[in-house]
């Protein structure tokens, strides 16, 4: 996984994939010292890990192991592809803490 992936790279240029579509979503971070919501265009053939790496840069989060993404009430698996989460224009991707300590 290349964590230095640039934000722009999300708009994949490869037209080869049939399934992939671009959707315009909102990303809201529930962690960090600032409440932030950003608009973002993502390609649905991206993996969750790729999206996380991008958001890590965008939101200034140090380590992708410190947060999960939640889409439509599902907490996303890093190995999964975005296409499996039925993302539509205007949907919200939440950046959430991995709060497993007791």
């Amino acid at each position, binding site marked *: 996984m290349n964590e230095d992936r640039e934000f722009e790279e999300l708009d994949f240029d490869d037209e080869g994939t049939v399934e992939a579509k671009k959707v315009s979503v909102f990303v809201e971070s529930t962690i960090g010292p600032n409440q932030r919501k950003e608009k973002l265009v993502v390609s649905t053939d991206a993996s969750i890990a790729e999206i996380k790496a991008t958001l890590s840069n965008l939101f200034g989060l140090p380590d992708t192991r410190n947060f999960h993404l939640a889409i439509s009430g599902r907490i996303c698996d890093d190995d999964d592809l975005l296409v499996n989460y039925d993302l539509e224009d205007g949907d919200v991707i*939440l950046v959430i803490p991995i709060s*497993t300590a007791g």
Partner: protein
Amino acid sequence: MKKSNFFSNRLTPDEIYRLDRQLRLPGWNQEALKNSSVLIAGIGGLGTEIAKNLAMAGVGRLYLVDMDTIEYTNLNRQLLFSDGNTGEPKAVVAARTLFRINPHSQYVPLFSRLEDVDPAIYETADIYISGLDSVSARRELARRAVHNQKPLVDGGTTTYYGHVYSYIPNQNACLECDPLKERERETLAACTLVGVPRKRIHCLLKGQLFFEANHGRPPNIHELSEMEIVLDYANNLIQEHFPTDEPFGLDEAVSIIDHHEPSIITINAVIASLQSQEALKILHHLHGTKLGEPNAEYTIYNGLIGKFFYFERPPNKNCLLCGEFAPPVERLVVPSSTVCGTLLPLLKQKGYFYSPDDEVMFYRIDKTEMELVDLESTLSELNIRHGETLYCPGLTKSGRDVDIYVKILYPEVTQ
């Protein structure tokens, strides 16, 4: 006549006096709480706070499950413990302290792994509350909640954040509804450290290995000179491979090498209080008093900005634990003298078939180590307990292959 708090004959005059201020709450039903029992899994930062809250609120019985003993570093946030208690089991000391806080309730300490708690207790408790610190323990508790159809109020923290989520059977998602392949946080295997460091963190781990190679033991994090050796090595690597990254500082290095989740009582107390309040409402609902509405959404608290976030968690119908095609739980009420092999004809009566060529097997899963059931023995000979779950794969029902769970219930215990 409507239930009265002040004239309840379930409560002693002493209790009525002690609880006076909450008995005045609109919609409150103290008798319901007095008749309730709650299983609290994990008596740490969250569990101690939750137990304190529910004890003070007068919940009738608390089962306190924890396999750990008290450490000195618990004392910054776990108010049921004090200096003299280090080394003692958390569950036992908690029960003792709670009895001093409110002697009118019962506290049952279970110094045990979740897996080994008597299945009858999971049957008896009205709800489960999790103050656990690992994903694997949460999964164990979640399975019990789904199989026993009990609400499970989960909570957790990390640094300045926390979450609360109440699983409500047949209403919202269970823990397994998200098919995460890699649930546990990635641990760094030694093999990832061979060769050129690929991440900043690898530099520090290499520094640690360098120290170990030279001294035959890991560095002592309390020894400045030893930490400096590790840091020197690590920061040289950073300069070489990640020139734009920050070098490691002492505090950062200590917290990584001696890894513990950072925890502060304020965040613990917020999350534990939310869990307790949800639990009190759910207990009211279970006993027929509609007090407010349990929050079925996943709630996140960000203590850095003082805000809450919520999202819905609809159940996943393909979930392997609670979904449409998940193995069902069949409850069998049989005497303990039943020979295990004769469970098969009982299942046949319920429409489950098995090919005579196949060997049907039952596995005991309510234990730390899964165990195959000897079909020639009786339930009591194998010490199979009331409420214990057996897993039975490879049956067919209505022409479809099914695996099932069989819950063994003894008539002598079931009324």
